């Protein structure tokens, strides 16, 4: 036992890094080959996001703000994809904006992956539009409170927003039926709550998907100021599974057909809509390793303390 403890005491941290790499790569390989995912039990916060989009009348205009970049796409892109997919399936109109410079490209990727691929009947400018990045952080939020088109005078491709059909009934941000935010930091969900949701007097419902680092900071706003919250990749996986369960439900067949997604109920979920659920495999491996390492660390600490006490005695 002394020998094992001695090795643990002197263990080079690089072996821990290697163990973590294997704990993450192993499940990715297995799930990549078998194409299986782990089951998810959605929390109330994730269900609330799903319900917020689901409960809107068909044809509502939703504002989707993608405030993230490739650095956090691993966590947040599946949320953005799922939000756009659910909105399209429900027949909502989507106005995409971003307060992060690379957010416009993240929106383009989502539009290509979801809307152009699976909903080709939707028209740019009529059913959805990418207004791209707008510099100014909180100042943009303050402007959209009174004049949305002044903050976003053109689309990402340079088309004027003044006579855009999708924005015909939109004067200010409060005219949107829902604000769906995907946030990686500043400016993000916290600022949208502080500068827009509070200023609108709670009239603008907001749901948010955020990184793991932000989640504890945003939980106090749920369910009052933020109606639904997707915390980290776990929240993304729960939300994804909620949509997939709904899509596979035979009762949704008529709605799927009218959304143009399919001729009826989906037989199987395309792998691009299982991305977050697939990433829960490496999470399991990494967290199990973390638990083992924390336990081992405590064992070593207790053994060291006991030997020090013995030496002192």
């Amino acid at each position, binding site marked *: 036992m002394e020998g094992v403890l001695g090795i643990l005491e*002197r263990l*080079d941290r*690089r072996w821990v*890094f*290697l163990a*973590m*790499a294997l704990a*993450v*790569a192993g499940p*990715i*390989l297995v*799930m*990549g*080959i078998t*194409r299986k995912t782990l089951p998810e039990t959605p929390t109330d916060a994730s269900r609330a996001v799903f319900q917020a989009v689901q409960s809107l009348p068909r044809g509502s205009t939703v504002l989707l703000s993608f405030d993230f970049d490739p*650095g*956090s*796409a*691993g*966590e947040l892109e599946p949320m953005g994809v799922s939000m756009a997919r659910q909105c399209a399936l429900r027949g909502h109109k989507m106005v995409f904006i971003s307060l992060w*410079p690379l957010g416009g490209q993240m929106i383009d990727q989502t539009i290509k992956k979801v809307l152009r691929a699976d909903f080709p009947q939707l028209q740019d400018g009529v059913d959805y539009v990418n207004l791209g*990045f*707008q*510099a*100014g952080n*909180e100042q943009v939020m*303050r402007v959209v409170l009174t004049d949305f088109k002044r903050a976003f*005078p*053109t689309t990402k491709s*340079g*088309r*004027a927003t*003044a006579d855009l059909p999708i924005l015909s009934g939109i004067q200010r941000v409060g005219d949107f039926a829902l604000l769906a935010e995907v946030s990686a930091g500043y400016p993000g969900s916290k600022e949208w*709550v*502080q*500068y827009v*949701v*509070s*200023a609108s007097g709670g009239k603008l419902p907001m749901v948010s998907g955020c*990184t*793991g*680092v932000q*989640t*504890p900071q945003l939980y*106090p*706003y749920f369910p*009052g*100021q933020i109606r639904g919250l997707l*915390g*980290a*990749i*776990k929240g993304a996986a729960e939300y994804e599974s909620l949509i997939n369960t709904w899509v596979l439900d035979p009762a949704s067949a008529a709605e799927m057909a009218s959304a143009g997604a399919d001729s009826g109920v989906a037989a199987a979920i395309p*792998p*691009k809509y299982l991305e977050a659920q*697939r*990433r829960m495999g*490496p*999470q399991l491996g*990494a*967290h199990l390793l973390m638990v083992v390492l924390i336990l081992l660390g405590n064992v070593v600490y207790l053994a060291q303390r006991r030997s020090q006490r013995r030496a002192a005695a």
Partner: protein
Amino acid sequence: MSNEHRSPAIVVWVMIVLAVAAVVGLRIGLGDGMARAYAERVEMRVTVKDVATPSGERVVEWVEWRSVSPADFSRAVRESPSQDRVQLNHANSVGLWVAALLTLAIFSFLYRDNTAYRLAEAIIIGVSAAYWGVIGVWDSIVPKLGGALAHRWTTEYILPNLPAPTTQSQIGMGVALVLGILLVLRLVPAVGGISVWTMAFIVGITAGAKIVSHVESDLLAQTVATMQPLVQPVDGGVWTVATLWASLPNVLVVIGVLCCLTYFFFSVEHKGIVGGAARIGIMYLMITFGAAFGFTVMGRVALLSQRVEFLLDDWLWLIDPLERRLVDGVSMIVGTGGVW
């Protein structure tokens, strides 16, 4: 690493690096190879109005290259081996290699600081700085400043669809231009002191804007959210298990808020009831820090798994979770590969 463990450890690390190199070599020589991007040629044709032509319109044609999956390339070749509609995209393929090598270079820091890591770090810093510079010019200076103060020139030569500025926005941008120039004067030592006017403006505006929003959303709204009924009757019953279970979150929130506030209240010595409440407050804080740590780990592991997925899928073609290829690498190696 301690001296007595150094030699065997280095042997293990060398073996790991060789194993990775062997996998890369195997994948390069096996099947369709690895790390390839493909593009499809799409011929575009639109009719636009043109008063200079007799018919009043003219046809504009161009070619677009759209990214497609390796499976699309395989299918196109299967249909017509001599086709040139779907081709290897050399630029994107090189991009995949660059991304993979930079990812490995960054990971190499976990072993020890080295030249590859420092090179990758320098590239990231340089690219980020250049990108922010370009963003500053094309998303702020040109559309906002140029659009307001030189609208005719900007719409004629750069951004044709910019709406006409209002007098108010022109005055605002004029003030912003003057304040910006004052800030840049910081670089001139003789008159650098004048830049504090701009700094004072920024600090004042930011503080004013933040105070109002914070009081509204974080103080008032959060205080209201804390004022919850301690008993939440379920189906009319007060002393039922369901009611107790439903009431528990509210009770915990109220206790937590009071105890945490007590912990940060230093005007009274933390003894007796105050000390007990402060200790419970510490426990709440510890649970909060633990939850924050757990969420941070989850976030970092998600980012790591995305990079590993990129290496195994996009670069090495070992796995194919998105079904973008006809056969994945592992199936090819173990001989179970099937066509989707």
